[in-house]
């Protein structure tokens, strides 16, 4: 808060030590990035750091990962066929189709709930909110088997709706908690003047509270985006093994499984899977940090 005047004395020695730590911390990622641009034959024979001596880079790995590679084969009848290797473009689209609703739906539901808890009087308000606080730390593993059974009965497994709802359910406690902390600090007087003007709770929420809560909504949105995009467990359980709906983490995992030694493809694929969360993360780091702080340092 009152930060500016409390700056510590800066030290060169400390800066050097920190620099070493930062380099060690970043080297693994740099290795991945460099390898993803190297030619297939050199990747498996020389370390990525030799690139300093013989810089010879290519974007072929990314082409193959994103678009696929045409290859010809002769089938049993002796006819020559052309086919394209599998690629990640479908998985990227699936990840987008999973992530955006899995971010927006819980935010909407949580914002309504946060407003309800903060400003609408109803019996059992405190008990319900206490339950939400208790649910904050419940591991999602508890829900996997029961919900999977429900989904099998409802024929929901392998659908986007299934995974949206699951992410909504698992993200809601934190979302409601964070948004409630924010919404409940909005001054009462703002709401009262709207009541006098004859607005109902619903329209006050839509016109007044949602726009006012944008910083809090953004914080949670980034948090949830990174979480859902990077999720593997929920996708594996509820999307299953269907290729048409597989998200990027699942496809990356299957590349590890089937082509674990093809480092040129693995590294390119891994970097493709990281590019979107990394961009969002750096562009909106301020909101992300704010969300983290709201979640961990409580009032």
């Amino acid at each position, binding site marked *: 808060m009152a930060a500016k*005047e409390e700056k510590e004395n800066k030290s060169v020695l400390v800066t050097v030590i920190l620099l070493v730590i930062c380099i060690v911390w970043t080297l693994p990622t740099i290795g991945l990035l460099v390898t993803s641009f190297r030619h297939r034959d050199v990747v498996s024979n020389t370390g990525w750091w030799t690139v300093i001596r013989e810089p010879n880079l290519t974007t072929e790995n990314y082409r193959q990962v994103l678009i696929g590679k045409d290859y010809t084969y002769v089938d049993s009848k002796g006819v020559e066929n052309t086919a394209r290797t599998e690629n990640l473009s479908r998985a990227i689209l699936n990840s987008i*189709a999973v992530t955006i609703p899995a971010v927006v739906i819980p935010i909407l539901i949580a914002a309504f709930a946060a407003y309800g808890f903060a400003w609408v009087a109803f019996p059992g308000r405190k008990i319900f909110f206490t339950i939400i606080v208790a649910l904050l730390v419940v591991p999602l593993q508890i829900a996997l088997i029961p919900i999977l*059974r429900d989904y099998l009965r409802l024929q929901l497994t392998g659908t986007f709706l299934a995974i949206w709802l699951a992410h909504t359910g698992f993200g809601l406690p934190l979302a409601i908690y964070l948004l409630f902390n924010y919404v409940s600090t909005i001054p009462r007087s703002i709401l009262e003047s709207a009541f006098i003007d004859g607005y109902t709770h619903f329209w006050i929420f839509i016109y007044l509270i949602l726009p006012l809560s944008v910083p809090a909504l953004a914080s949670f949105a980034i948090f949830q985006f990174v979480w859902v995009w*990077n999720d593997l467990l929920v996708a594996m359980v509820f999307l299953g093994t269907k290729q048409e709906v597989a998200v990027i983490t699942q496809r990356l995992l299957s590349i590890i499984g089937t082509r674990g030694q093809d480092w040129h493809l693995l590294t390119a694929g891994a970097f493709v899977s990281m590019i979107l969360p990394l961009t969002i993360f750096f562009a909106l780091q301020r909101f992300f940090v704010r969300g983290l702080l709201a979640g961990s340092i409580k009032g």
Partner: protein
Amino acid sequence: MEDFEKAVRPEGFFANLLLTLWRLLIAIVVPGIAFIVMYVGFRFLRESRAPAWIITIVAIIWGVGGVAMLYFLANWLITQFGPAWRRRLQPFLFVGPAMVILAWYLVIPTLRSLFLSFFGPASNKFVGLANYAYVFTDRTMLTAFRNNLLWLIIGTGGAVLFGLIIALLAERSHLEKLSKALIFLPMAISFVGAGVIWKYVYAFKPPGQPQIGILNAVITALGGDPRGWLTYRPWNTFFLIVILIWMWSGFAVVVFSAALRGVPSTIKEAARIDGAGEFRVVLSIVIPYIRGTIVTVSTTILIITLKIWDIVFSMTNGLYGTEVLASQQYKQMFKFLHYGRGSAIAIVLVIAVIPVMWYNLKQFMSSEVF
């Protein structure tokens, strides 16, 4: 609608009945139509062979738009009722959907898992405590317990310790912003992506060949023998834990940095004037001052660590003695198709978080937000 209400009001009992019927009718018909519209979209998404990008766009519009539409629809329905009912129903419009989803996805599953944990593989035969006996006596399970304990202690301890050290260094360096961003960066990476990064760090080639993994390259350069780190028991669990520390220290750094800014410089200055060295200032003043933050950061990382699954699953799939509770639970579900044992492990995980839950509730009760 208002007109209709006014027009029929004076007619007495019959008109009231008509009004009630009308309300019932729209209360059934309108949601019915909404449901059909939603179901058509659902069927399209599940069965369509359209190009992937069309499905993606339709999915987003259908999912996001559908939920928004349901709220507007529910609000419209409520305004069709009289003022008394409107007041009674309004809270449910706001908290109802959240409560239903939380009940379906977290509250009831906890009870159902507890129930299932007393049944056999297909959940149709009561087996008493047999699943729990398995969980606490099976050799692989015991390895999983031991490993989880290592994860909890070394993983959480390491991330918190590194986080604290880096936050303290950053505060006193010329690189505060840059260093924090770099250390924080791995948090945006998935566990699977991090798995690829670290598999490459640990990559192994037989002695004599040039090493492509940086760890083995450094070791051979120093005159040591290369190793397959991921199969090297019992230390391989430790090499997996390093990944978690690498990913989550950044979280600790960011939260600690914010807390460090709250430590009054006057106290630190006073101690320095009294002749205290920098280590003494940190140990006796700074750390006690931010103790509350250290506790919250530790519990947050502790809970992440307890549920750790992705790293083990993508790096070793639990082989070579690296099994943890969550990976065992997944295996029981999908490999051995034993829902009873899977549920029992899930219950063990829930029991493990109860102290944290209790602590959170105590904090919440004393905060008087309501």
